[in-house]
C-alpha cells in the first residue's frame, strides 16, 4: 500500500513517462487505487504544482485524462531549444488546419469551399501526420467524412484545450 506522498510521486512519474494524456481509468489501473481517491489526489497535485513557483511544469486536465506539460511562462525559453528535426508545416497545411480547428467537424468539401482549391492531398497529409482525424459522417447526401483535430494537434501547437485558440470573431 502506497502512502499519499508516494502516490503523488508515482502519478508524477507516470505522467512524465507518457508524453501525452493519461486517461483516468488507466491511472486507476496502473496505480491500483480507488477512482475517488485518485481524483482528490490529482486535484491536490494540480494546486501544489500551480503554487510552486520553482516548478516549470503544470498538470492539466484534458478530455477526462491528465497530462504533464510546461507552464506558458517559459515558452520564450523553450522556443530556443532546438527541436529534433520537427518538420515545419507548409502554409497550405496550416491554412487547412486552421479551417478544421475552427469549423470542426468539417467535411473536405467545406474545406475546399473556403480554400478555393482541391484539398484531398493536404487532408491526407494531415491525417497521416495525425493532426486531424475522421470524426464520423455528415448526415447529408453521400455521407461525407467529417474531420476534427487530434490531441497531437494540441501538442504541436502547445494548447491544452481548443478553447485556447484565438477568438474567430476578434480577427
Amino acid at each position, binding site marked *: 500500500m502506497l502512502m499519499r506522498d508516494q502516490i503523488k510521486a508515482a502519478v508524477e512519474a507516470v505522467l512524465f513517462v507518457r*508524453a*501525452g494524456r493519461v486517461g483516468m481509468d488507466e491511472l486507476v489501473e496502473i496505480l491500483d487505487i480507488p477512482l475517488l481517491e485518485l481524483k482528490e489526489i490529482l486535484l491536490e497535485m494540480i494546486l501544489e504544482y500551480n503554487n510552486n513557483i520553482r516548478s516549470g511544469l503544470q498538470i492539466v486536465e484534458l478530455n477526462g485524462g491528465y497530462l504533464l506539460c*510546461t507552464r506558458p511562462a517559459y*515558452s520564450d525559453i523553450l522556443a530556443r531549444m532546438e527541436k529534433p528535426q520537427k518538420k515545419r508545416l507548409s502554409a497550405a497545411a496550416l*491554412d487547412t488546419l486552421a479551417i478544421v*480547428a475552427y469549423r470542426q467537424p468539417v467535411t473536405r468539401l467545406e474545406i475546399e469551399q473556403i*480554400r*478555393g482549391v482541391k484539398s484531398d492531398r493536404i487532408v491526407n497529409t494531415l491525417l497521416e501526420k495525425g493532426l486531424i482525424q475522421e470524426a464520423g459522417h455528415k448526415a447529408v447526401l453521400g455521407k461525407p467524412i467529417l474531420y476534427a483535430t487530434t490531441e497531437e494537434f494540441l501538442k504541436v501547437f*502547445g*494548447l491544452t484545450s481548443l478553447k485556447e485558440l484565438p477568438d474567430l470573431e476578434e480577427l
Partner: protein
Amino acid sequence: MNYVVDLESFHGPLDLLLYLLEEQQLEIYDIPIATITDQYMEYLRQTGEFNLEQMGDFLIMATYLLNLKSRMLLPSRVELSEEEDSDPRAELVQRLLDYKKYKKLAECLLSYQNGDFPRVFFRDSEDEISGIEELVGDAAQLWRSFQVLLRDLPEQEEKFRLPQGDVNISEKMEEIVERLEQGKAGLVLQDLFQGVISLREALAFFLALLELIRLQRVEAIQEQSFGEIKIRLQVAV
C-alpha cells in the same frame, strides 16, 4: 514588365486575388471587378509551367470572374427582383473575407508553434526522437486482407490487365501468311479479325500485319477511299 508568375507560390485563386487587392490597396468590400479580372487573367497568361490540377482551380475562378464582370457590365434592362438586385460581388466578397480570416488564423497557429505566443510544451516522446514506432500486426489479418482483395479481383483484372507474354506477334505473323497462302485471292482486312476475342489479340494481329508489310512479305491495297483494304502475299519480283 515581362515576368513569369509562379502560381505555385499562391495557395490558390483566392490567395492570388487577395494579393492583387492588397498590392493595389483596394477594398475587399468594393472590388473593381473589371480591373481585377483583367489583372487576374494577365497573371494566368504570364504563367509558364504549371501543375494541371492546380491550374484547374485557377481557371474555375477565372470563369467566375469573367461571369461577374459581364454581369456588372450588362445594363439592367428588366426590373430586378429584390434578390437579383443584390450586388453580384457579394458572394466573392464573403469568400475573400472568410479566406482572409482563416489565413490569419493559420498565421496564429504558426506563432503558437514557434512559441511566439505563450504556449505550453509537451514532452518529446522517445518515439518522436528516434522515429521508431512500434507497429503491430498479425499474419491472419494479412491473409484476410489478401483474400478479400483476391475475391474482388476478377472484375478489376479484366479492366486493368496489361498485355502480357500471351500475345506473340511472330506467331500471328505466321498465321497471317498461312491464311494468305490458303486463300488465293487474298483477304479483306476485316477478315483478319474474325474470331478474335480480345483487344490484345486484335492488336497483335494488327502489329503482325504492319511488320509483314514492313518486311515486304505482304501488301495491303485500298483501291478507293473508304473502300475495302485487301491484303495479299507480295509476289517476289
